[in-house]
């Protein structure tokens, strides 16, 4: 009988119920007593990665703080779709002030709490990439530099979505946005620009910096919990796909989040006081095309003629990340074992270093077809 090595990945990341785990190891989302901090009724788009990320992150933070949490939110999609006056989706004390000032408002809240001796109440500042990476950057750096006791969460969907998909300092190269269109020879957003805020956060040597995606729920929750164990300035940068802004299918949100990590384009790691303390390795290398092809914001790279030169540059960036952060899969992982399991997320990609497809079980094939969906 052929020997089939089964890999049990975080089944909870795709199946929220994760009944196979002990109750205390299950995700916060699996619990009926979760806070639902961002509760239903908000006006987010179908498949919004930010709504997902915010709910995951804040429910975890609420659990870690026993509900003693206050949030300061920047202007942006999250703020707009969650508080259409007179309704609000927020089930925690929440303030929105301006676009650039989520960080200092959070600082002010925690200063007030400290003055009143209420250091049991914790504070989260949050915003999209626009409010964090660009217009709010000076304020964010100030908060880091002062080591204010605030957890700042950036939901990165790589452009100013609320205003109609314009380029931000977090927009990757070659992306089409409303003001970086691939007209003529232009590749879309130019190469050689942009900033890596997680690395900049690390340069401030704050107690905790982490990146995460909405594809790995338990990982994200763990990071929020870890952050809430610590005091001082903390930063979590969450990759959140935006179906509308990216031109991707709303059902592909989590898949895209998984792909961006597995290609190496988005390193997932943790750092404390300026030093990387852990990376989430890639399970199996995926070429960047598999990720790019699912999004119309990259469609111009696959036209006639295809811009293979640009795709190669993007691939080179991914390779560099893998090398830089040590993301490559371990030796015996993901190789061509007979009957190597494909990921239930429907990735039947052929990574560079695999010898060939292994045997696929009927179950796996069915799942792959289910999640890949109609092409």
């Amino acid at each position, binding site marked *: 009988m052929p020997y089939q090595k089964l890999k049990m990945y975080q089944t909870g990341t795709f199946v929220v119920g994760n009944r196979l785990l002990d109750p205390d190891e299950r995700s916060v989302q699996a619990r009926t007593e979760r806070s639902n901090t961002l509760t239903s009724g908000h006006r987010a788009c179908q498949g919004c990665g930010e709504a997902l990320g915010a709910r995951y992150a804040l429910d975890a933070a609420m659990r870690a703080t026993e509900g003693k949490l206050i949030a300061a939110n920047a202007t942006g999609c999250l703020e707009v779709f969650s508080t259409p006056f007179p309704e609000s989706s927020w089930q925690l004390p929440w303030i929105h002030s301006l676009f650039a000032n989520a960080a200092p*408002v959070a600082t002010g809240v925690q200063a*007030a709490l400290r003055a009143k001796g209420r250091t049991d109440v914790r504070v989260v500042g949050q915003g999209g990439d626009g409010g964090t990476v660009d217009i709010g950057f000076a304020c964010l750096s100030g908060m880091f530099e002062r080591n204010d006791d605030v957890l700042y969460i950036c939901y990165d969907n790589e452009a100013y979505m609320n205003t109609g998909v314009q380029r931000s300092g977090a927009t990757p190269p070659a992306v089409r946005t409303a003001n970086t269109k691939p007209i003529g020879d232009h590749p879309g957003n130019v190469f050689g620009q942009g900033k890596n805020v997680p690395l900049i956060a690390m340069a401030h040597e704050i107690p905790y910096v982490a990146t995460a995606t909405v594809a790995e729920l338990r990982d994200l929750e763990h990071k929020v919990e870890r952050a809430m164990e610590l005091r001082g300035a903390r930063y979590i940068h969450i990759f959140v796909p935006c179906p509308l802004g990216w031109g991707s299918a709303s059902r592909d949100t989590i898949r895209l989040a998984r792909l961006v990590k597995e290609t190496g384009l988005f390193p997932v790691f943790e750092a404390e006081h300026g030093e990387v303390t852990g990376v989430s390795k890639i399970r199996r290398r995926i070429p960047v095309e598999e990720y790019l092809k699912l999004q119309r914001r990259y469609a111009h790279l696959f036209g006639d003629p295809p811009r293979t030169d640009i795709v190669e540059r993007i691939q080179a960036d991914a390779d560099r990340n893998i090398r830089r952060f040590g993301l490559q899969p371990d030796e015996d992982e993901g190789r061509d074992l007979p009957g190597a399991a494909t990921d239930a997320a429907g990735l039947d990609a052929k990574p560079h270093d695999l010898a060939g497809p292994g045997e696929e079980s009927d179950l796996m094939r069915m799942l792959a077809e289910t999640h890949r969906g109609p092409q």
Partner: protein
Amino acid sequence: MGVAEAVALCRPEVVCAYPITPQTHIVEHLSDMVRAGDLDPCEYVTVESEFSAMSVCIGASAAGARAYTATASQGLLYMAEALFNASGLGLPIVMTCANRAVGAPINIWNDHSDAMSQRDSGWIQLYAETNQEALDLHIQAFRIAEELSLPVMVCMDGFILTHAFERIDVPAQEQVDSFLPPFKPRQILDPDDPVTIGAVVGPEAFFEVKYLAHAKQIDALDLIPEIASEFSTTFGRESGGLIRSYRADDAETIVVALGSVLGTIEDVVDELREQGVKIGVVAIKSFRPFPLEEVREALCDAERVVVLEKALAVGIGGIVSANVRMALSGIHLHGYTVIAGLGGRPITKKSLHRLFADAIEDELEPLSFLDLDRERVDRELRRMRDEHRPGPHAENIVRDMGIVGSRSH
């Protein structure tokens, strides 16, 4: 020093500081007090910009803490967005504005351009004549702010007041405590009772929310004199209020002004009165809300009104005078706008004597500029017309004159 002590007596819980001339010593002194344990409990946050300073105040105030900051000039403008946000959210923050000119050209000296540029931000604006009044107004400001749920800006002339030494009486803590009770906001960020603050408000409700902000400032027209009166009872001196008249009852000519220049004006008025001139002064203490009725009543019997102001609405003329004019709608008298003291140019008794003498003879232009170097500007204007090349005016003037180095008075 006096202002810092007054603020400390009001028991602020969060103070933030970003340095800008000429407010620095106020916030430095508060920092010393916090570090020495004299001001406790108080969190002192050194922010990285004025925008951050106001934002920290917003967060702190929303979380139920009494919050304070100070700024001037460029700093006030840098937090402009946050000013509107604070007032729109109804947060009772108190801020000192150490009035200073706004660049370009960069200028660290006193005028009212900064606060005037933010007159519509929804903040209450009070102007101090003396250092004593500046101290007193801060104490009144916290009361006014917290009763109305509106932020209050206490304006005091940069350098002229902030860097002057004069006798002030600093009240006792017990007096201030009896006047200013602890801050108890109606709605705060509190996990025990979660609220959403700062929602998107669309066309169906924005108008009403904005109107209510205006209505609150109109209410302030009643509250401000009440607080001033209570202050007078508690502390034994007159301070604040909406306006103050000096020898204006039977005056044919009334001078209207804000801030420290009023002291110099009153000296000149006294001298003219000795010569039999019927001249008086109306000091505006509360610029926002603007006391239309009180100003009208104080000025309506005069033959002429001279508004002397330290700000210029480029492209039209006076700012204070436009507000005064509104108060005088329908009343016929001679109105003169005099722009003076911009960028810290001293307003001297000598110049005021000349000015008032011209005013009395109705030999003033409707809009005039006190001690402006006409020759210099005319030369530059001629040059601009002849050469048709753009360029920063200050530099051009300097180049024309070949000036190097500083000038002393």
